[in-house]
């Protein structure tokens, strides 16, 4: 198994000629082959080896890693199978897209590859990113990387498991209601969801358009920072992206000379420490906060009063958008068209047969969303949810007048056992209680390892920043990471 945990270690190894990009890629491909975590749905062996050999030739020409021009030079990454890669099967972990080969590459991935990154393959996930455990996949559940009977979290479960298990240097996930942060917390990684609008969604197969964001999973804050700044910025193909700004978070972190957190006001929302919070999670978060205070940060008790409505709000908004976003999977232009559909005598049967390929959770959400948008229910559900969403956003706006950053747990518990919650969707939905509010508000948030429970399962610290406040957020996380060391 490759031993380099970070982008910088990998580049140093290239420069020291300990390994070449193609040798490294080969090692990762072997590790993927041997792994039984079920993380990759598709491995792009030929494509990635070609990319790696190209990197080899560039290295030969330069004699060193061209870090300036290609900050991700030769770095093998895993890509969640919800992001398109031209010519490479993209399934969204669904039967319905089993044979789908997209004709274009997602902007986020395109920017990473342009910066030198290599795409090892497409990572397993909950079908259409709907789930919190990575058990809702047509390609089988993903195992937790260290506790095989546990879930890695979802929906970007494999994105976390693969990085943790050393099957790629870092990976891309997507976060709609916590899908990057929850797996990062369960697997003991750094997981960042940037501000809504920071990274183009072009090529991100939509679950809930007003919530979806590309995020990163990595061993260090610095790696996530580098990936994020590479992907960020306006994309003419996505009208919801923010104007470009010059970002150099990674360099900012590297040159960070701060010895304390003086002046940092950390808000601690009481609503995130309610019933159902595992004691060890509470104490791990608490002790990290104490450490921050010891470094000069000021702890401010705050309230985000509408937090208790966030799950209900989220599950109306997200499923409504999903019911519409997933309408295109009709078997007419692409995707699987079953024999029964082909033989259908009328249109309704054709659709029924094709769309029966969706998994149970996806069907449940499409039905819920269709209901919530229906005439006569729209006002009571969708419209009301949008109103409450504004109140939740307002809670944060008010809070950020008093604090610089908000700290909380990522999830109420550590990774649970596979099969434990599949039959109880509501219990499953509750896992996202701490991550959903920031998603509804479009705020940047991350998960940082901050301890372990008695079963040696990782606990994540949740840091939330104001809109486009990734700089401060990453800097704080980096400071804590360096100061407290990895808890892995």
């Amino acid at each position, binding site marked *: 198994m490759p031993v380099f945990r970070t982008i910088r270690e990998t580049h140093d190894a290239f420069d020291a000629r300990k390994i070449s990009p193609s040798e490294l890629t080969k090692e990762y491909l072997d590790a993927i082959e041997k792994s039984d975590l079920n993380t990759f749905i598709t491995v792009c062996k030929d494509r990635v080896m070609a990319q790696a050999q190209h990197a080899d030739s560039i290295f030969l020409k330069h004699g060193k890693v061209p870090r300036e021009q290609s900050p991700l030079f030769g770095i093998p990454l895993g890509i969640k199978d919800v992001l398109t890669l031209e010519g490479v099967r993209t399934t969204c972990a669904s039967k319905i897209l089993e044979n789908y080969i997209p004709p274009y590459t997602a902007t986020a991935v395109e920017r990473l590859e342009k910066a030198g990154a290599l795409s090892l393959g497409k990572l397993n996930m909950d079908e259409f990113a709907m789930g919190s455990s990575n058990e809702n996949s047509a390609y089988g559940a993903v195992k937790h990387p260290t506790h095989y009977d546990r879930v890695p979290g979802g929906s970007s479960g494999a994105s976390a498991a693969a990085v943790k298990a050393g099957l790629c240097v870092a990976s891309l996930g997507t976060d709609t209601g916590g899908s990057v942060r929850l797996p990062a917390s369960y697997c003991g990684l750094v997981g960042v969801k940037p501000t809504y609008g920071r990274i183009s969604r072009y090529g991100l197969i939509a679950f809930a358009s007003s919530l979806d964001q590309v995020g990163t999973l990595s061993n260090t804050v610095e790696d996530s920072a580098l990936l994020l700044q590479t992907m960020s910025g306006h994309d003419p193909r996505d009208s919801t992206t923010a104007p470009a700004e010059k970002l150099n978070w990674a360099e900012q972190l590297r040159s960070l000379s701060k010895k304390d957190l003086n002046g940092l006001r950390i808000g601690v929302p009481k609503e995130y420490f309610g019933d159902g919070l595992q004691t060890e999670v509470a104490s791990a978060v608490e002790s990290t906060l104490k450490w921050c205070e010891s470094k000069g940060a000021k702890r401010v008790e705050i309230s985000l009063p509408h937090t208790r409505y966030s799950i209900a709000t989220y599950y109306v908004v997200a499923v409504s958008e999903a019911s519409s976003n997933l309408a*295109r999977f009709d078997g007419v232009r692409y995707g699987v068209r079953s024999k029964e559909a082909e033989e259908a005598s009328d*249109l309704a049967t054709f659709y029924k047969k094709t769309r029966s390929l969706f998994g149970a959770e996806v069907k449940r959400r499409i039905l819920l969303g269709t209901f919530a948008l229906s005439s006569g229910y729209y006002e009571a559900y969708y419209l009301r949810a949008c109103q409450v969403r504004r109140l939740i956003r307002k809670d944060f706006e008010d809070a950020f007048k008093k604090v610089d950053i908000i700290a909380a747990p990522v999830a109420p518990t550590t990774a649970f056992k596979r099969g434990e919650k599949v039959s109880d969707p509501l219990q499953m939905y509750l896992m996202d209680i701490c991550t959903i509010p920031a998603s509804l508000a479009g705020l940047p948030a991350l998960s940082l390892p901050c301890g372990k429970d008695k079963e040696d399962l990782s606990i994540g610290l949740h840091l939330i920043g104001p809109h486009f406040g990734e700089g401060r957020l990453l800097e704080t996380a980096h400071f804590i990471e360096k100061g407290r060391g990895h808890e892995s």
Partner: protein
Amino acid sequence: MSLEWETVIGLEVHAQLSTQSKIFCRCRARLETGHSVANEVANANTCPVCTGHPGTLPVLNEQVVAFAIKAGLALGCEIRKKSIFARKNYFYPDLPKGYQISQYDQPLCENGTLQIELASGEKKKINVQRIHLEEDAGKNVHMSGYSLVNLNRAGMPLVEIVSFPDMRTPEEAGAYLRALHAIVTYLDICDGNMQEGNFRCDANVSIRPMGSSTLGTRTEIKNVNSFRFVEKAIEYEVNRQIGVVQGGGKVIQETRLYDSAKNVTLSMRSKEDAHDYRYFPEPDLLPVSVDKAWIEKIKKTLPELPHEKRQRYISEYGLPALDALTLTASKPLAVFFEQSLATVKNPKLAAKTTANLITGEVTRLLHEENIEMSQSRLKPAHVADLVELLTQKVVSSTGAKQALLQAWKTGDSIQKIVEKEGLKQVSDLGALEPVLDEIIARHPAQVAEFKAGKEKVIGFLVGQAMKATGGKANPSLLQDLILKKIKS
């Protein structure tokens, strides 16, 4: 039409905007020739966006908004500072995303008016409720036993112009439609070809007892593709509804299709089968912001509109109202008229003759061959030359008609045609005198009758002279000469 029943008609017009590219992607929306790309090789004019590939996003074409604002200004609408797109959700194979991006409760333009003029000269204001933007769907092609989908047209930019139910007769509906057609073609925002479907109309029709102020149950007649058919379809539908009610039945709310071959409307689907479109705001697009400066800028580009042109033709050229109305009803005809006058020495003097030729022969020929002015070989120069010859009495009106027909067929110059066909009137006195002397000598009885006071008989003599000159002589000149000879 019945005296007991009042007809209430509202029209929804879909006009395809003649922008270079589609509304949400970079695919072409029209060819250099102005022809529709819908007729290109099936599905050649598509991209991942307009075929609804997973992960793609719409990006609004600014030109489309500018065109729609033009229409709004020409119809005196309020232009919303902020309008939003909404998704209209329904399943159909020609609808790639499973929803149409349209506008719903916040359209771009609202509350306009359009003045119509009836054949009687009566004028009436029809209120325009709204103009909104939307994308077109593709087209299903039904073969025996299977169907094909052509998405060339998917994503074409449309405006939907919705009137209030202000029309009371099929004639008014026809006049409204013609006036609207004239406006969009004058603005150069729509090619206006009804056969190609880039100007389509749905009619909402209901009846109510004369004097009633509540609306009756309406039916919607779909996609009628000519002005005349709209009038006929409404006429049929009104009579059908009266028949239903008088027979003790009730009109049911439904969508009906007009069969022009049989001149009947047929039930397509009832209200019970109507879709619940589950409209909700399109999360992939930002609200459309239109500022004052933009509106002012567009205002400055507005051309002379049909009613303004009509006024000018009356005041500047002294044309009768009916001529002005006919000429301005279609932009190509008005342009042709103006270009014909452009090279004439005294336009004011030539205007009536020019108008007569264009509203008479030229219009007849256009109808007969069912072509557009631009497709004809006849050019404004032909008409200008002809008018010049007519004014100088070089050709007779019969000769002029003949020459025009030749020019229409061959495109040859008027000079050449007049020479070749010998259409020049004989005005040479020296050549005429012997002919006239002979006629007078051969018809002593008629000459005597004339002298006895039966002046009508002069017509016979002129006729004889015309015959003798092969129709080339100017009849009024002949009459003058004969009179002079008899009286002397």
